[in-house]
């Protein structure tokens, strides 16, 4: 009985929160800053630099949205969230959106009452092994000791994968990525498994990265994307189409270098014109000014530029585009048309 009342109270409070913040766009405009929830520190995705400025791949999404809505990519107030606090921060209205390498899953989208507005990074669970082990496929890992972070989906994925392939393994449970790194380098486990982007970032910090390889098998789907509260579709649209604008800009060849020039006068490509607001009234349809996409692209460049700057092959993290290439290049990035 008491439990019911408690849950009821929570629900009422939750509903009240939902009603009061129905017009997130108005709140953001009135406040003059976007409250964006980010991770407390994931290499390449979100981290404060020496001046306390947040940098990273997820951070760039926040900045693009701020630029689209407020015209200023620096008008973002970053709220660092942990794995535990992220969803409450969003549900309670403490942040307007979450860009925190969060996997899009069924229950998060439905049961937790959030809306994932897209995918900004297609990740998947991979394996890292020392080259000296002489293994070239995860199928050869029978009997291996595996460093694995406890309480994560990666732990479950690992168990599934080894069962499906009829392999045995011995888990070495670790708490954090830092601990895993130490254990792996000390030889306490043969294999370290986590999201492939995390493995690449970890490997980049090793003294001799070349001595370690990532196995080709990716054993799970981890679509990471920004999310907003359920129930405010106007706001969800804005975040979704800002992300789409970044992707479409890359497809259309609009970069931070030429966006100023392309948006000055209408070009011969009508889709670029509609995107950059020199033709049509797309901005007005989502309650923004017509140069919203131009501002978003000017903030950090298009999707490809953001990728290259933060996690691409020329950074220490050195991720290849892989699944995150444009659909025209065999990847999964596919923005709906701007029409």
């Amino acid at each position: 009985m008491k439990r019911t009342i408690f849950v009821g109270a929570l629900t009422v409070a939750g509903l009240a929160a939902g009603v009061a913040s129905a017009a997130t766009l108005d709140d953001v405009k009135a406040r003059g800053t976007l409250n964006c929830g980010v991770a407390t520190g994931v290499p390449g995705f979100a981290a404060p630099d020496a001046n306390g400025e947040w940098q990273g791949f997820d951070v760039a999404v926040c900045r693009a949205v701020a630029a689209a809505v407020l015209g200023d990519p620096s008008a973002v107030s970053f709220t660092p969230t942990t794995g535990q606090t992220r969803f409450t921060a969003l549900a309670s209205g403490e942040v307007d959106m979450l860009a925190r390498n969060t996997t899009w899953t069924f229950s998060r989208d439905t049961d937790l009452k959030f809306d994932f507005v897209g995918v900004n990074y297609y990740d998947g669970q991979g394996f890292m092994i020392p080259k000296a082990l002489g293994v070239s496929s995860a199928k050869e890992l029978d009997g291996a000791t595996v460093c694995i972070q406890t309480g994560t989906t990666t732990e479950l994925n690992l168990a599934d994968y080894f069962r499906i392939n009829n392999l045995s393994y011995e888990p070495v449970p670790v708490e954090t990525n830092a601990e895993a790194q130490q254990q792996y380098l000390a030889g306490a486990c043969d294999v370290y498994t986590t999201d492939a982007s995390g493995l690449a970032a970890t490997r980049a910090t090793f003294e001799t990265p070349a001595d370690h390889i990532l196995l080709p098998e990716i054993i799970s789907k981890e679509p990471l994307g920004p999310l907003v509260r359920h129930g405010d579709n106007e706001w969800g649209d804005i975040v979704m189409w800002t992300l789409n604008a970044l992707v479409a800009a890359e497809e259309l060849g609009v970069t931070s270098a030429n966006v100023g020039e392309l948006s000055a006068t209408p070009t011969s490509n009508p889709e670029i014109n509609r995107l950059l607001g020199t033709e049509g009234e797309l901005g007005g349809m989502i309650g923004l000014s017509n140069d919203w996409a131009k501002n978003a692209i000017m903030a950090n460049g298009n999707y490809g530029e953001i990728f290259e700057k933060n996690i691409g092959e020329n950074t220490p993290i050195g991720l290849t585009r892989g699944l995150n290439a444009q659909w025209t290049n065999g990847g999964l990035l596919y923005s709906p048309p701007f029409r």
Partner: protein
Amino acid sequence: MSDLHAQTVAYVRDTMLPEAEPPLTERGAIKWLRENLLSGWVNAILTVVSLYLIYWVLAHIGPWFVNSIWVADSLDECRQIRDAVNNGEPSACFAVITERWQQLLYGFYPSHLYWRPNLAFVLLFVALAPILFDNLPRKLMWFSLLYPFIAFWLVWGGSIWMPVSVLAGLMIAIAAFGIMARFSSLIGVIAAFAAPVIWWLFLAAPVADAVHSLIPIGIETANSKQIGGFMISVIIGLAGIVLSLPIGVVLALGRQSDLFIVKTICIGFIEFIRGVPLITLLFTASLLLNYFLPPGTNFDIVLRVIIMVTLFASAYMAETIRGGLAALPKGQYEAADSLGLDYWKAQRLIIMPQALKISIPGIVNTFIGLFKDTTLVIFIGIFDMLGLTNSIRASTDWNGVYWELFIFVALVFWICCFSMSQYSQWLERKLQTEHR
């Protein structure tokens, strides 16, 4: 000596032997060594083993420290310098501290405003001095009372009328007590609590805004999200320490009270808080309150954490002080009664001074524990020093640096906690009144 032997003794020496040095094994360093390190074969073996262990540890850590690299832009550069200059010997990369020490101390506080927390920190010692050392002029106490408001204003900035308006709440409390106590002292006490609460909740902010619009005096605002690092530990730790001691005293007295409701509430509170981990209370502060408070309420996260930490520490403090009260002989209570002192006077003049003195080690223990517990805020996304080590590692430049950051954090905490411990030992010696 009897005369009997006068003729039987052939020779009696009548001058003293010159004073001789003690034997070599009974003086100086050798004596010390023999007594302290080699006083038996078991101890001798233990000494040799310990010396070897110490040597082994130093031999491994020493060169790493000696080869420290203090200037580099990234861990990679550190490694290059190590290979070029130190021939690849293990070297600490303290360059990360050189680059990020300001962030570790101040969090994301705007760098052109560093002077404000610095000033607040210096004034802290001015404010603490009259409390810690009783041979200073008592008038300094007024500054100590004002200090929390000054520090708040310096750190958070904004309009000066906000701290003034909060301070006015205290004046209102005193005034309310003065007026209402004429009717009954109980009504006076109730008014003294209720009036300032009403003032703070409903009137303080609008009044401050109104005055500010008339006479704008203010400095640049810094918000709670910008405060971090060592600064947040000091703010939370200090606020917790200062508030938990009086609350703890009240709770300890309440627990010993004969009044049923007071006693039950105190026991319930203490046992509930002591039965719950601090991290649970912090999660309550950061997550649950968000659901219960009306939407749009801007209840500062740092304030929420301070409240929770204070509640937590005061429960422990209450039990520490209850230990001191229990250790007092019954005769002291009876002596106070026989002097005709009422309850509060007896507590103030006889019981508390002795009970608190007995509890000093326990109280300081709680203080130190509380200060170190402030690192737990990392779990609710507030960047204290430990949290910042994590986010510093998340930058691609410094990914992979562990020990150097942890050593720095440990050193800063050690300095603070060791100072507290040394002060408490000094205080204990000073208050030592037993006759031995």
